[in-house]
């Protein structure tokens, strides 16, 4: 057995789960799909005293359409997102991104909420949630609160979740017919962590993109929004020169951090490569 010993409980409701979490404090870890947690336990990077298995909590399940919003439960797996008709129709960026997440056996268990709550800067869902203006629905013993994705990812593996919080679901405004998107990821092997990636969403009007959202991931401590680049492109006729300028702007504004195998220079270069590809694809 690879991990240190721990206890295991499986609450049947959200109230019970919140109670158990409040009681156990910071020594407890929630487990949903466990596809990151189990690996860290196996490597003894984490030694919680108790795992609280939330997979029986109904309030955390399912993808539903509620008027102009999609509600994605925290327990929805990557595979469910990949295969969901509601996602394909109303949040096509997520369908495009899903196959990039690890491998099928991992996508079958790993969850939407787990990925968001873990806040890995190399992960796909944090970047997508920012690109799609998602709202996190969070429960704690004191009630429900809603946090915009833009206020949720604070630092490396750090979100605005408090120790007694449970991320219940996420709400995403549904895509209209003018929405264009592009998901790009560069990795050494399919399914590996990205060297650099981009989740891009905009409204297309003729030769123009408006309401642009370009979120780069796996380049900094959190997913990074290219605010200046977005403003630069927004509402202008998209031509070769504008793309050249946008690529330059993005390389300047995104503050990249090197990782173990890729230099900051390489990542900075790739930011431009990804943006150029995305803009061309979105205008095609």
């Amino acid at each position, binding site marked *: 057995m690879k991990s240190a010993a721990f206890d295991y409980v499986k609450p049947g409701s959200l109230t019970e789960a919140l109670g158990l979490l409040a009681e156990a404090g910071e020594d407890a870890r929630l487990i949903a799909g466990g596809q990151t947690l189990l690996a860290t336990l196996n490597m003894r990077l984490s030694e919680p005293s108790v795992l609280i298995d939330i997979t029986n909590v109904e309030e955390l399940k399912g993808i539903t359409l509620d008027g102009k919003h999609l509600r994605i439960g925290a327990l929805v797996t990557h595979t469910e997102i990949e295969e969901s008709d509601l996602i394909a129709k109303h949040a096509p960026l997520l369908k495009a991104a899903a196959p990039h997440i690890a491998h099928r056996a991992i996508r079958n268990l790993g969850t939407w909420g787990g990925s968001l709550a873990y806040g890995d800067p190399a992960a796909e869902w944090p970047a997508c949630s920012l690109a799609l203006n998602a709202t996190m629905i969070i429960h704690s013993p004191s009630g429900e609160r809603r946090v915009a994705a833009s206020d949720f990812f604070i630092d490396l593996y750090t979100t605005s979740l408090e120790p007694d919080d449970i991320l219940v679901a996420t709400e995403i405004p549904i895509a209209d017919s003018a929405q264009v998107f592009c998901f790009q990821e560069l990795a050494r*092997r399919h399914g590996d962590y990205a060297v650099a990636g981009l989740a891009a969403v905009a409204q297309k009007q003729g030769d123009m993109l408006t309401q642009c959202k370009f979120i780069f991931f796996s380049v900094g401590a959190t997913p990074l929004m290219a605010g200046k680049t977005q403003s630069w492109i927004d509402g202008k006729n998209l031509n070769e020169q504008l793309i050249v300028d946008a690529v330059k702007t993005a390389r300047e504004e995104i503050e990249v951090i090197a990782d173990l195998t890729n230099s900051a220079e390489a990542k900075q270069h790739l930011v431009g490569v990804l943006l150029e590809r995305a803009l061309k694809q979105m205008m095609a």
Partner: protein
Amino acid sequence: MSLKKKITLTVNGIQVTAEVEPRMHLVDFLREDLHLKGPHLGCEQGACGACTVKVDGQIIRGCLYLAVQANGSVVETIEGLTKSGALADLQESFMRHNAMQCGFCSSGMLLAAAELVEKQPKASREQVREWISGNYCRCTGYHSIVDAIVAVLDARSKGQKIKPVVANA
């Protein structure tokens, strides 16, 4: 803290009840307690795919799943799926295409391939490569494995069978 938990699950069609430590992985439980040595242990951190088994109809990593999580579930391993014939054409095709040498990855590879054949019967060669990218093979160089899976997809789409390498006597 060695408080054991009682679990009941179905493994290859047989109901099993056991007491396990919460930290015991499903693949360790299968191998050590149930003596099912088909699922292999490679990296034990989710990278290699050698421990692939099915839980409630889906492939998972046996090293990233606890035995206690499988309480109430239906678990299938290469042993059960071989016996039921679910993998028969893939197994024939792996033999026909020399899609193995040492065999360490084969059980995981076959289970991954089976889910692809079921979920994406029209998969292209590229999609096959992507799908099995989660399973390491250190012998074959993958081409023969991809060949074997593509041959099954092809045969099934035409309603044909993979010819056995060894004819039944």
